[in-house]
């Protein structure tokens, strides 16, 4: 017997080996399209491209925190502090520029640096002291909501700061009336974040390390991967993204509100998970997260177009749609798995 015949594997379809991990995201995209077609069939003006563009206008900050959250969840952790960090960042922008008189670009840099530093700190606590991510970041959730309220317990306007006009500057793609749409600069910032995240996750050692740590932290450690750097890194990225989302929110409204973004962390987690990322870590895609955010936005849009639901029916319908979506996604994914074996 030669060495070559050692492993007698029936030649299995390589196609499916490669494709199975795309099933959840594929299902998400297919269902997203189904939702869109459903909207088209039922509502007037739903065919306006602005309906889709709008998903990336209003959800730009959500997209950014969800991208950060994707890193954390892929590594097997969770970050509950994003909503509060985001609100804090917006408030800090306002405070720095309006009250402290710091120039806006500098304020922006300070805020982003601060978000990253916070991520580094909490990541270090999680890694070196083995504090559970849920708890460590829950501290952040409380702390930054508290600090935001300490800065100001009312909303603050930044409209006088010219710099913040930049974010909502429209880029027109044709006239709305002729079936065109527009996007503000801040949507492009969100796109850029997605692209960078995609490249980092899939094409750098750090990114692959995130998957490895999420797959099995102890194995990654024994394989000699830089576990500490990776784990702390993902929280730093999430902190940065949360701060950036706060800045985008500042651009979007030119105001800061101490009670903004309560529960945003749950929206972000939901978007990530709907996008097919496993909460246990190690499996998922940034583009899935984009799809997840779009689903989230699309469900809200459908409810808005429907428009005759009372507050409670709106919630129930949202829950039912989400349920239907998740079950369908699950069924599609399952039949995909079946075909594999």
């Amino acid at each position, binding site marked *: 017997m030669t060495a070559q015949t050692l492993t007698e594997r029936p030649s299995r379809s390589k196609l499916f080996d490669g494709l199975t991990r795309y099933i959840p995201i594929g299902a998400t995209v297919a269902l997203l399209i189904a939702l869109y077609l459903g909207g088209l069939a039922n509502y007037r003006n739903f065919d306006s491209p*602005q*309906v889709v563009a709008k998903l990336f206008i209003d959800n730009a900050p959500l997209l950014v925190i969800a991208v950060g959250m994707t890193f954390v969840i892929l590594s097997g952790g969770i970050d509950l502090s994003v909503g509060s960090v985001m609100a804090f960042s917006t408030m800090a922008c306002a405070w720095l520029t309006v009250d402290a008189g710091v120039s806006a670009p500098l304020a922006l840099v300070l805020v982003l640096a601060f978000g990253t530093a916070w991520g580094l700190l909490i990541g270090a606590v999680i890694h070196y002291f083995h504090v559970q991510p849920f708890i460590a970041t829950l501290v952040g959730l409380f702390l930054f909501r508290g600090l935001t309220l300490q800065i100001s317990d009312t909303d603050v306007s930044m409209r006088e700061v010219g710099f913040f006009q930049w974010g909502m500057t429209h880029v027109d793609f044709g006239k709305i009336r002729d079936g065109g749409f527009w996007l503000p600069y801040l949507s492009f910032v969100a796109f850029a974040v997605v692209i960078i995240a995609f490249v980092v996750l899939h094409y750098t050692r750090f990114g692959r390390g995130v998957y490895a740590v999420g797959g099995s932290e102890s194995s990654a450690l024994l394989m000699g991967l830089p576990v500490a750097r990776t784990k702390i890194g993902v929280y730093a990225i999430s902190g940065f993204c949360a701060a950036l989302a706060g800045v985008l929110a500042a651009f979007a409204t030119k105001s800061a509100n101490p009670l903004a973004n309560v529960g945003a962390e749950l929206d972000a987690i939901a978007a990530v998970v709907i996008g097919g990322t496993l909460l246990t870590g190690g499996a998922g895609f940034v583009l899935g997260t984009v799809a997840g955010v779009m689903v989230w936005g699309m469900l809200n849009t459908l409810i808005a177009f429907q428009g005759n639901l009372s507050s409670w029916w709106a919630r129930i319908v949202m829950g039912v749609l989400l349920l239907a979506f998740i079950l369908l996604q699950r069924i599609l994914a399952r039949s995909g798995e079946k075909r594999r074996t």
Partner: protein
Amino acid sequence: GDDSDSGDGGGGDGLVVGFAQVGAESAWRTANSTSVQDAAAADDRIAELKFVDAQQDQEKQIEAVRNFITQQVDVIVLAPVVETGWTDVLQEAADAGIPVVLADRGIEAADEDLYVTRLGSDFVAEGRSAGEWAATTFADDADGTRILELQGTTGSAPANDRKTGFFEVLDAEGLNYEIVDSQSGNFTAEEGKSVMETFITTHGLDGIDLLYAHNDEMGLGAIQAIEEAGFAPGTDIQIIIVDGSKAGFQAGVDGKLNYIVECNPVFGEQLMDVVVQVADGESVEKFTPVEEGVFDATQFEAELPNRQF
């Protein structure tokens, strides 16, 4: 409708109105939503009311307004969660030629041009009304008036304004008062009660003159706590609440509280009139106050049957 009106939306008779509501965070708010929805349904000048509940989130509310713009509704009604941050989206509405009416809360003065009119309550005024009653009632309280305050959700506009208005008047009237404690009860009965319980164990109730609760729910929760501690609310301690729901008035009739500053959510019909005026391009006042009153112990009984929520 019997005659065809200005319908520029595309041939439907009647107006399509988009209403971006704050949320459903309190009984007051739900009453408000119901009132608007019912009024729209009953009103044959209105073809359709698109209602969106933003769950107290400004971003969701902005999203809702943008959705209304895409849907090309005739009028947008906005009950802003916060005062600031509306410039862009209201500008978009203006660019799309859709008039905006504010309901309930207001927005910052600099954006005044971006909406046609505002219909709603004035929280500072509510605070002032409460303060005026307190100032007269305790004017000759020799040893100083000791006050407990149950604030609304920290950072929310009604909480901030009702506090400001109240103490503004007390200061202006030169009342000799002391804030014994002031905590947030988040506008809910649950927290109102638990904070009050803690007030009682920490400070005792002897010597406390007045409880000022920023809304009904917290006030009713506090009344529970006071009763359970073996005191008589309304007698051992005077109580002011804002809002004036049925339950609040009922407590008043039972003698458990002393003063109610109304904050009226039932302005659906009033709102529809304004909306139609705006759609027809009639000129309207920049601010239309909702009809609201203040009630003391002598009026509770008579007013109770009129309460709608």
